[in-house]
C-alpha cells in the first residue's frame, strides 16, 4: 500500500496545548492514514504525551481541531472518544490496581467498545469470549486472576495493550510500549504490536525512544521538539537529519540507528 492513497483516519490541525506560559504542543498538524503505523519521537518534554492526552480527551486542547473518522472529537470527553474507536496506553503503566487482570480487560471491553446507557448486572457471553481471546493473545493468560498491582512491568504493559484492544479501537495510541524492557522482551512486544496491526487491522501511533522499535514498526516517523514537528518522514531519514541528531539522538544513537536500518535493509 502507498501512504498517499489512504484516506486520513485522524487529522490534527493546529493542535495547541498550553500550561500557563509553557506551550507543550504548539500548533501541530498531521494526519494518520488508515492502516498505517506512525512513530513519534522527540526529546523529553517535547509534548508527545501531551499530544496523546489531547487526542484522547484526557486534557482539553487549548485550540486546534482534531478529526477522527470524519468526526470532530476535539471537545468530546474521553469516554466518548474511546467509544468512537480511539484508544491509548499510558506512559506510567496505568491500570486499575485493585482489579484483577481479567477484570481490568473485561471492564474495558464492556464500557469502552460503545457507549453504555445502563450497565447490566453481568457481562455477556460475547464480551467474555472476546476478552478471553485478547488475554490469550497478549500473553496474560497465566496472570488472569492476579491483581494488577502485583504484575511486572512487562505484564502491565501487556495489560494496557489488552485493555486498549478490548475497546476495539480503530486507532491505537501507544505511549512508550517498550520502555524498560530488555531486547528479548522488546522483540516480543514488537511482535505483539505487529499482530495487532494485522489481526485487528488497527491503525497505530506509537511514541518511543527506543529506535529499534520505531524502525521495526513504523511506516512513517514524526519527531517533535518544543511542541512542534521538526521531522516527518521515513524512519531511515531520522538518523541523518542534523537537527534531530542534535536535539534528540546524539551521535552514538544516530550511528546505531544507521546501523539498524542498514541491517533491516539487508534482511529485506
Amino acid at each position: 500500500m502507498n501512504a498517499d492513497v489512504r484516506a486520513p483516519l485522524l487529522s490534527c490541525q493546529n493542535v495547541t496545548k498550553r500550561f500557563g506560559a509553557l506551550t507543550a504542543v504548539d500548533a501541530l498538524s498531521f494526519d494518520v492514514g488508515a492502516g498505517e503505523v506512525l512513530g513519534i519521537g522527540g526529546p523529553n518534554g517535547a509534548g508527545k504525551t501531551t499530544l496523546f492526552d489531547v487526542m484522547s480527551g484526557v486534557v482539553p486542547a487549548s485550540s486546534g481541531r482534531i478529526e477522527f473518522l470524519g468526526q470532530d472529537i476535539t471537545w468530546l470527553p474521553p469516554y466518548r472518544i474511546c467509544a468512537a474507536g480511539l484508544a491509548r496506553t499510558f506512559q506510567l503503566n496505568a491500570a486499575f490496581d485493585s482489579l484483577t487482570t481479567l477484570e481490568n480487560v473485561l471492564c474495558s471491553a464492556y464500557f469502552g467498545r460503545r457507549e453504555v446507557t445502563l450497565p447490566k448486572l453481568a457481562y455477556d457471553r460475547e464480551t467474555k469470549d472476546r476478552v478471553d481471546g485478547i488475554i490469550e493473545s497478549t500473553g496474560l493468560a497465566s496472570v488472569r486472576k492476579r491483581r494488577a498491582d502485583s504484575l511486572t512491568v512487562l505484564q502491565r504493559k501487556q495489560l494496557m495493550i489488552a485493555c486498549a484492544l478490548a475497546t476495539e479501537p480503530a486507532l491505537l495510541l501507544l505511549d512508550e510500549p517498550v520502555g524498560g524492557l530488555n531486547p528479548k522482551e522488546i522483540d516480543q512486544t514488537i511482535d505483539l504490536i505487529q499482530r495487532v496491526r494485522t489481526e485487528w487491522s488497527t491503525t497505530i501511533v506509537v511514541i518511543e525512544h527506543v529506535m529499534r522499535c520505531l524502525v521495526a514498526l513504523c511506516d512513517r516517523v514524526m519527531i517533535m521538539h518544543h511542541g512542534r514537528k521538526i521531522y516527518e518522514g521515513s524512519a531511515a531519514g531520522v538518523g541523518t537529519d542534523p537537527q534531530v541528531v542534535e536535539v534528540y539522538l546524539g551521535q552514538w544513537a544516530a550511528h546505531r540507528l544507521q546501523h539498524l536500518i542498514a541491517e533491516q535493509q539487508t534482511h529485506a
Partner: protein
Amino acid sequence: MTVLDSVLQILVSGITLGGMYAVSAIGLALLWGVMGMLNMAHGSLIAIGAYASVFAVGYLGGTWYLGLPAAMIVGCLAGVLLYFATARWMVGSGQFEMNIIIATVGVAIVVKSLLIIGFTGYPQRQPFALEGGIYLGNVLVPYQTMLIVCVAIILMMALSWLLKATRMGRAIRATAQSQKAAALMGIPAERIYLQVMVIAGVLAAISGVLISSTANTSPSLGEVTMLKVFIICVVAGLGNIPGTILISFALAVLEAAIQYALSAKWAFPLLLGIAVMILIWRPYGLFGAARIRKV
C-alpha cells in the same frame, strides 16, 4: 444605640469569632492541611490545653499567667501520647489516611470521657484571661480578643515560614507526600510525625487556653468549633495557611452579620450553604491549587 454602633458591634463580634476560629485552626491546618492527617482529636488537644491551665492555676494554685506554660507542657505531652496511640503504628501503611481518622476519633472519645470523669461536664472558669478592653464608641473590644487575634496571626505566619523556608518544613511536606520517598532521602518519617504532632499539640493547647476564657472551659471545648474550623480549612484550600486566617475572619464576620441582619437561626445553615457554593465553584478551595496526578 446608633447604626454605627451596631455595625461596629457586628465587626467586633466577627473579629472575636474569627480570632477564635483562626487560633483553633492552627494545629489542624498543620496536621491536616500540610500532613494530610485529619486529626479528629484536635478538639481534644484544645480542651486538654484549657484544662491544663485550669488545673495548674485553679487546682494547684499557680498564678494566672502560669496557665499558659503549663498548657504548653501538657500539650507537648499530649502530642507525644497521641503519636504513640495512633500514628506510631500506622506510618507507612497503605490505609494511613483513613485509619488515622478513626484512631484519632477513638482518642477524642477517650479524652473527652476522661475530662468529664476528672473535671465533671460542667463548664469552669478559665483563670488565664485578660480583663477589660477598649471602647470604640459604645462597643467594647476586649483585650482578650486582641490577644487572640494577634497570637493567631503570629502563629500562622511562623508556621507558614517554618513550612516554606526551613529544612524541617520541607521534610514535613515531603513526608506527607510520600513516606517512602522521604525514607529514601534518609528522613525518618516516624520522627517527623512525632515532631509535627508535638508542635500541633502545643499549638492546640495554646489556642485552648486563649479561647476558653470566652468560650467556656468544658470537655466539649474545641469540639464545638471543629466543624467550622474544618470548613474554614477546606474553603481556604488545604495547606494554605495565610488563606486559612483570612477565611476565618471573613466567614466569622459574615456569620455575625447574618445573625444580626436575618436571625441567628439562619447563621449556621447559611454559612454552610455559602461554604458549599464556594466548594462547588472552586473545588480546591478559594486559595488552593488543583493537585495534578499524571497517568
